[in-house]
């Protein structure tokens, strides 16, 4: 018989008792704990401010091409990063500034790449849609829908084969669940029992089309989990603590050799799909509703409720802003790529020659 599909719906966080700060302190050091929480706070801030800076730089014409911001979706990347081991692998999409940053890639590297500068993570060769920092485990941003799901499975295969204990995290959008590679990757990973965690960030839209217009089920990822014998998991993606817990469970499962998980995290992007999109297709009031559920707002309140001093919360924010300012200056002052790099790194010998 087919495994019964089990379901988990996670939308309620640990409620801190409103009373004494001391009590809260104890709760703050629950299964997540203060240190991890402050880290998630910082990571969310880093994403928010780097993305906002990217937005500004775009309109100063310092970033060309395109860029896809994750403002509003910060909790997911941050919480998953907090779960990962330094040697774990992240695979993400063109909307991947966030996922790259939280692994520890430098802000200069990210902003520099967006601006096409020499200091960019990819030396200006890849661009905003392909941020990668292999040393940090950020194994690439992929700009064609679907491809990176099986690629993430492949990295997990390597970990399984060499018994390194590493796992792969793979992030993608709701729209991605309708392409063939999604299906192949999920089935393949389950059959091979690969240590990979698939995280669908359901922000309700593909580019400009609501996901519900083009999807046969309500929950594009969770309602498909059963097709691979997986548990159906939906989590409030704007609450870092909740995401942290499901991601941790999934990571534990993967590391224990029990195979992949598929997590659907409900969230919302505050801006348009990409730089040029004013997002006029959104029904009135939708954005406003989600702004109230802004992950940073939620998390700031959580920390305060838990008894973290406001000054501490603010200090982290200030430090992040300074870092973003510094990185911006650095990137602006970085030169454009030298002409020589045009013809390098097609091949492992460093060159681009196709003939003798």
């Amino acid at each position, binding site marked *: 018989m087919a495994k019964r599909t089990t379901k988990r719906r996670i939308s309620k966080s640990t409620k801190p008792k409103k009373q004494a700060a001391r009590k809260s302190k104890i709760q703050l050091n629950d299964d997540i704990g203060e240190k991890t929480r402050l880290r998630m706070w910082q990571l969310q801030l880093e994403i928010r401010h780097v993305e906002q800076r990217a937005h500004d730089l775009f309109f100063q014409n310092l970033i060309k091409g395109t860029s896809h911001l994750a403002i509003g979706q910060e909790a997911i990347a941050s919480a998953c990063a907090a779960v990962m081991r330094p040697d774990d692998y992240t695979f993400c999409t063109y909307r991947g500034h966030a996922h790259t940053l939280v692994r520890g890639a430098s802000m200069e590297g990210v902003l520099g790449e967006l601006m096409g500068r020499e200091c960019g993570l990819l030396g200006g060769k*890849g661009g905003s849609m392909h941020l990668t920092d292999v040393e940090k485990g950020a194994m690439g941003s992929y*700009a064609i829908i679907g491809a990176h799901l099986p690629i993430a499975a492949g990295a997990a295969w390597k970990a399984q084969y060499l018994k390194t204990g590493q796992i792969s995290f793979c992030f993608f959008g709701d729209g991605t669940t309708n392409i063939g590679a999604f299906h192949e990757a999920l089935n393949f990973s389950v059959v091979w029992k690969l240590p990979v965690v698939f995280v669908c960030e359901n922000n309700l839209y593909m580019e400009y089309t609501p996901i519900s217009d083009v999807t046969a089920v309500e929950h594009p990822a969770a309602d498909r989990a059963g097709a691979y014998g997986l548990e159906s998991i939906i989590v409030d993606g704007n609450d870092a603590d909740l995401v942290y817990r499901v991601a941790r469970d999934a990571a534990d499962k993967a590391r224990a050799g029990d195979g992949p998980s598929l997590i659907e995290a409900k969230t919302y992007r505050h801006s348009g799909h990409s730089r040029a999109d004013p997002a006029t297709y959104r029904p009135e009031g939708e954005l406003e509703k989600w702004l109230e559920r802004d992950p940073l707002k939620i998390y700031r309140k959580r920390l305060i409720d838990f008894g973290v001093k406001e000054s501490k919360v603010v200090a982290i924010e200030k430090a992040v802003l300074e870092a973003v300012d510094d990185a911006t200056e650095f990137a602006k002052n970085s030169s454009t790529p030298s002409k020589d790099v045009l013809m390098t790194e097609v091949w492992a010998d460093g060159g681009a020659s196709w003939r003798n």
Partner: protein
Amino acid sequence: MAELTYREAVAEGIAQEMERDETVVFLGEDIAKAGGVFKATVGLYDKFGPDRVRDTPISEQAILGAAMGAAMTGLKPIAEIMFSDFLAVCWDIVANQIAKIRYMTNGQVSMPLVIRTANGGGARFGAQHSQSVENWSMMIPGLKVVAPSTPADVKGLLAAAIRDPDPVMFFEQKSLYSSKGDVPEGEHIEEIGVAKVVREGSDVTIIALAAMVPRALDAADRLYSEAGISAGVVDLRSLVPLDTKTIFEQVEKTSRLVTVEENPRLCGWGAEISSIVAEERFWDLDMPIIRITTPHIPLPSADELEDMALPSVERIFETVRQGVD
């Protein structure tokens, strides 16, 4: 005549054909309510309604499979693949199914469909959103391949593609979407398979396609004014069918041939033309055949690098000047 952008001409061409033929239908991602990510199909949804202009999931195989099934049973679908790079995710449907079914069934099945797609570089989108892949289609028997360089040709050739009883790959060059030009008002239709001599010349013939046409024209101007070289420019417009007649006429006239391609070097359409001329007009040639292409590398994203990679006016000018010397 009305002045339209290249992108506006797309919607005009589609509208013209949808008006005259109920069996023309249009599908793709974000093409209906949103008017397309390049805004090339704005207004069609409002004009022709949700039964004829349909948004799809991100499912390129389903999009082209559906177009194929509809084409073989009586409709004339137009399918959009948002960026031509994404043809790779549905290449089986294009290369193995759509292209081959008429031949395999000995003519039982017709395939009157058009696949429109935004092709080429110059927008700093990086290696996965900037490829010029018209040669991917040219190499597959059973596909017609069209790539216009002007708004008028967009309208006229797109209309022709929709009426064509065979599958047509229609490459819209991204970097041309905002370019403008005069477009005949009212019904306008061009013939597929006819190249256009867009500049007469006597010393050398430059063959170009899509975004390379305006660059070749600029280079030809400079060649004349700065080096006294009279360069003719041919806008190929269609790779299949290929207008070898026009190519041969120009080669006979100038005895010198240069091709300018946006695609990377190996197995581009310039190679095919070069090989045809080297075989069939060998004795007319007074100069080696020169190919100008993007180097054989993935396309980089930074401004300076991308500009260096794509054939520039300067590079065309210099290469032709040195070649003719």
